[in-house]
C-alpha cells in the first residue's frame, strides 16, 4: 500500500491552519473538477483532493494522520502500526460534504470505507447508487460501423470489473451512452446507478468529424481539376468513385451523400475539399511544358487583389 502525503496533495505545509487547508482545497477542487478541467487525469486528481481534504479538514483524523510524522514520502510502501488509531474516534462515521468517489486503499485501511461504514446494519436506509461518468475514445471507423468494446471499470478497494459495451453505428463526438444499472451499487437494496459513457474520437490521419459530417482533403493534379476526372476516394465505409467536374479549383468542396456518421434516422455526408498539387518539373522537357502553358494560357490569378 502506498503512503499518501495529504499535505503535499493539497499543496499546504504540515502546520497549515484549518482555514488554509479549506482555501487550498476549494481552489484546487475548482481547478481539477472533472466538469471543468480537461487536463489529463483531472478526475483522479479531484478524487485525491477530496480524500486529502476528508482527512485534513477533520481535526480528529488529521491528528491521527499526523502521528505518522513527516518522514513518509508520497508513494512509499506503507503499513500502519496495529495500534495507530488508539485514542481517536472516527471509524465508521463522519463522512459528509466531500465529493463522492473511490478512496484509496491507504485511506480505507486507516479510516474505513465510506460505503460500508455509516450505513451498515440499518435496513431502513435505502439510497440509489451513484451514477458514474467516463469517456471512451473510439476510432472514426468504429463510430461509422458500430463496435463492441470491453471496458475495465474500477470499483474502489482495488476491484475492477469488465463490461462489454455495444456501441451502435453513427455515434458522434460528445454524445453519451447510458448503461442502466451499471453505475455504483445502491445501499439497502436500492437499485444501482447508471453509467454514462461520453464518446470521444481518436485523431485520424485522413478524416475528421464535424458532428455527423466527415471531412477530408483530396489532393488532385491540375489537369484532373481542369479537365474533370473520376477519382477513387477513401471513405470510412470503403473506397468509392468520385467525379471531379471539369473546371474545379483548389478549395472546392464536393459532397458524398450518406458517407458520414449515419443512423437509421440521421444521415451524415463526407465532404471532400480539393487541394491542387502542382507537380515539380524535374527535366528540361517538363519545364518547357510549364513555359508553354504560361504562353498559351496567360492568366492573372491576383486580379481580385487589384495587382
Amino acid at each position: 500500500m502506498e503512503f499518501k502525503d495529504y499535505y503535499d496533495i493539497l499543496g499546504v505545509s504540515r502546520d497549515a491552519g484549518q482555514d488554509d487547508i479549506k482555501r487550498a482545497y476549494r481552489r484546487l477542487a475548482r481547478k481539477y473538477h472533472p466538469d471543468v478541467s480537461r487536463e489529463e487525469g483531472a478526475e483522479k486528481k479531484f478524487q485525491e483532493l477530496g480524500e486529502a481534504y476528508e482527512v485534513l479538514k477533520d481535526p480528529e483524523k488529521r491528528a491521527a494522520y499526523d502521528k505518522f510524522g513527516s518522514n513518509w514520502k508520497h508513494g512509499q510502501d506503507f503499513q500502519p502500526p496495529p495500534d495507530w488509531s488508539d485514542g481517536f474516534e472516527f471509524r465508521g462515521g463522519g463522512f459528509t460534504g466531500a465529493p463522492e468517489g473511490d478512496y484509496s486503499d491507504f485511506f480505507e485501511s486507516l479510516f474505513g470505507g465510506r460505503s460500508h461504514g455509516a450505513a451498515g446494519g440499518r435496513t431502513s436506509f435505502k439510497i440509489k447508487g451513484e451514477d458514474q461518468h467516463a469517456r471512451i475514445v473510439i476510432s472514426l471507423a468504429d463510430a461509422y460501423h458500430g463496435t463492441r468494446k470491453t471496458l475495465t471499470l474500477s470499483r474502489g478497494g482495488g476491484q475492477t470489473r469488465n463490461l462489454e459495451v455495444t456501441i451502435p453505428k453513427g455515434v458522434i463526438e460528445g454524445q453519451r451512452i447510458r448503461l442502466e444499472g451499471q453505475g455504483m451499487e445502491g445501499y439497502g437494496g436500492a437499485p444501482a446507478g447508471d453509467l454514462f459513457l461520453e464518446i470521444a474520437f481518436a485523431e485520424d490521419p485522413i478524416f475528421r468529424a464535424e458532428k455527423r459530417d466527415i471531412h477530408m482533403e483530396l489532393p488532385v493534379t491540375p489537369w484532373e481539376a481542369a479537365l474533370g476526372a473520376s477519382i477513387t476516394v477513401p471513405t470510412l465505409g470503403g473506397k468509392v468513385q468520385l467525379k471531379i467536374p471539369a473546371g474545379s479549383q483548389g478549395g472546392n468542396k464536393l459532397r458524398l451523400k450518406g458517407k458520414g456518421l449515419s443512423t437509421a434516422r440521421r444521415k451524415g455526408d463526407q465532404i471532400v475539399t480539393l487541394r491542387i498539387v502542382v507537380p515539380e518539373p524535374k527535366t528540361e522537357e517538363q519545364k518547357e511544358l510549364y513555359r508553354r502553358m504560361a504562353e498559351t494560357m496567360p492568366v492573372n490569378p491576383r486580379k481580385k487583389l487589384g495587382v
Partner: protein
Amino acid sequence: MTEKGTSITCTVLDEDSRYSFGDLCRLCGVTAEMILDMIDEGLLSPGGRTPAEWSFTAVEIKRVQTTVRLQRDLRVNLPGCALALQLLEELEELRRLYRLR
C-alpha cells in the same frame, strides 16, 4: 477481483432523444422542484406547454447532471451554475473550432 464480462445493451442519448419531466427527474436523481428552479433560471427550456407535455433533450440531461455536481462539489449556487454551464458550453465549442483549424 475481476468479474466475468457481461454484455449490456446501451441507449444512445442522441439529438432525437426526448425525455419527459418524470424521466429527467429519475435519470438525474433530482426532485421536481429542482427542475422547476432550473427552468426558472433559464438552464432548461422544455418543449410542450404543460408539465405533462414537457420534453427535454439529451443536452439538458447533461446540464442537470453537471449542475448537481457543481452544486455538491464546489457549492456553486444556481445562477452560478447557469453561468458556468454557459461558459463551459462556449469553451467546448471553441475547443472544437480550434481542433478544426
